[in-house]
């Protein structure tokens, strides 16, 4: 008899549900088998923490007196430009945004010490930040200049909205060239000097629900220390990626678009990121509970690091030139051991995703669920699965003739 989410929530309210982390589940299934594990365990918690592209926040800062219309004007938060083109006082700031005067890679590699991700971290932590805006003025919004301190507790809404997070598997980056390169997966030493990976492996949310059976639109999640929801599939969601026999993708596959109230979040799980030579981002902590509805979910959540294979990609040539070449596949167990073999060479590995933070998140989520503070949700709609016919498209480039460009 399969379980329902309602039954699990009733057990949680009665304090009778059994909640374990994804790492613990792997051990339980190994020891007792899928059938017994399904009978014993109601919920498995996952966790991941790492730099996540496509993260950002939107704010409604409230109306000034006299009113100002930021839309169509310019607005900076701690010197970092925000997107104003939504309305009068709604603004959006992306993690990768840089101050206008940042030297970028003018002297390569640039440092990228401060950007959108850092503003979000400071704002969440409760620090005052500086808002500076100029607008063109209208009859109903006459004000043209504004410079003020801004605090998260004073704005109407502060919402984290990340259009692509929690990648289901990811590339392992190496450098085959003879000089160091600076990438979004870190500094890569020449001639296979190191190999960098970025997934929580055994604890990663979508690797524990590889066919998106329980994680869907509307799923309540741990986001940045507070509560969030899956609002859609993330951009570049690619369920058709190749998979192993147990349905674990061997390439970057599914992604999540997530949203949550920034006012309830914690800067411990939202941190500004500076990638030398690349730019800024935001370190995001996400944890997702997986209801063990049946034996298949017990089986899926028993995934171990040795079951998860990731592609090794050369970031000096194949990645920047968008070539599909892969140098081989390697398991997360090998990556975690600290050294992998590529050809005849032993290559030391480095993680960008933090295992200790992922464990902490899975543990914190487990405790919140056990206390009955965090109930499980039935998705409103499934995420597109491998049968959905979605393919991951490259840019379709069509040159524009001179005459049309000048129009």
């Amino acid at each position: 008899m399969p379980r329902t989410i309602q039954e699990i929530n009733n057990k949680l309210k009665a304090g009778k549900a059994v909640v374990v982390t994804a790492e613990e589940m792997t051990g339980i299934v190994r020891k007792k088998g899928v059938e017994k594990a399904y009978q014993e365990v109601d919920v498995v918690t996952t966790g991941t923490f790492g730099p996540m592209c496509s993260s950002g926040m939107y704010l409604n800062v409230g109306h000034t007196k006299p009113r100002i219309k930021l839309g169509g004007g310019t607005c900076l938060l701690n010197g970092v430009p925000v997107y104003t083109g939504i309305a009068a006082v709604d603004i959006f700031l992306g993690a990768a945004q840089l101050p206008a005067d940042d030297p970028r890679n003018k002297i390569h590699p640039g440092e990228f010490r401060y950007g959108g991700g850092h503003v979000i971290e400071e704002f969440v932590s409760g620090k005052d930040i500086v808002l500076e805006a100029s607008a063109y003025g209208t009859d109903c919004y006459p004000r043209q200049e504004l410079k003020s301190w801004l605090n998260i507790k004073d704005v109407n809404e502060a919402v984290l909205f990340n259009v692509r997070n929690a990648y289901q598997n990811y590339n392992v980056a190496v450098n085959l060239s003879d000089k160091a390169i600076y990438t979004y997966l870190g500094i890569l030493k020449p001639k296979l000097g190191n190999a960098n990976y970025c997934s929580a492996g055994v604890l990663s949310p979508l690797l524990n629900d590889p066919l998106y059976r329980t994680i869907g639109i509307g799923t309540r999640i741990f986001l940045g220390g507070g509560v969030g929801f899956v609002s859609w599939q993330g951009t570049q969601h690619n369920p058709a990626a190749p998979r192993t026999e147990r349905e674990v993708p061997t390439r970057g596959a599914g992604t999540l678009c997530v949203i949550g109230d920034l006012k309830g979040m914690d800067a411990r799980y939202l941190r500004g990121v500076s990638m030398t030579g690349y730019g800024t981002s935001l370190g995001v902590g996400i944890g997702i509970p997986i209801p063990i509805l049946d034996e298949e979910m017990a089986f899926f959540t028993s995934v171990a690091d040795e079951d998860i294979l990731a592609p090794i990609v050369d970031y000096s040539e194949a990645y920047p030139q968008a070539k599909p070449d892969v140098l081989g596949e390697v398991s997360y167990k090998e990556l975690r051991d600290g050294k992998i073999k590529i050809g005849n060479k032993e290559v030391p590995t480095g993680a960008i995703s933090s295992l200790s933070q992922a464990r902490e998140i899975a543990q914190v989520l487990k405790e919140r669920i056990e206390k009955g503070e965090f109930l499980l949700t039935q998705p409103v709609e499934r995420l597109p699965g491998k049968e959905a016919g979605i393919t991951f498209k490259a840019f379709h480039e069509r040159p524009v003739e001179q005459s049309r460009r000048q129009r």
Partner: protein
Amino acid sequence: MISRRVVLHFPSQLIDQPILSNTVRRYNLDFNILKASIAPPEGGLLVVELLGAQKDVQEALSYLKGLKIEIQNLSRDITMKDDACVHCGVCVPLCPSEALVVDHADWHVEFIADKCVACELCVKACPFGAMEVRL
């Protein structure tokens, strides 16, 4: 024999003099340059390991001090900010002297200051700004 790793800050008026070579000859020391930079008008910076008899190394350091060269112990120069480190471990394979290691049990990154040669690669590599130079 002892070894001392120190950071020497040279005032700008000394950068044209063969101070290191004078010092090692006078006090019979071996040396290993870990890092050097000269940036007039601020002066020069030399990170060096000095090897020799304890008395000779100490006298050499007093001699350098007498020339108005500022001396710091090396281990103090790179520090890890515990509250900023998220223990991802991206720095670990980059560290040339194994001063950054990951404990595979609890997956915590540890900084062993004594092993640090102050190459500063970790400072560039840390996405979270957890490794700091103090010079």
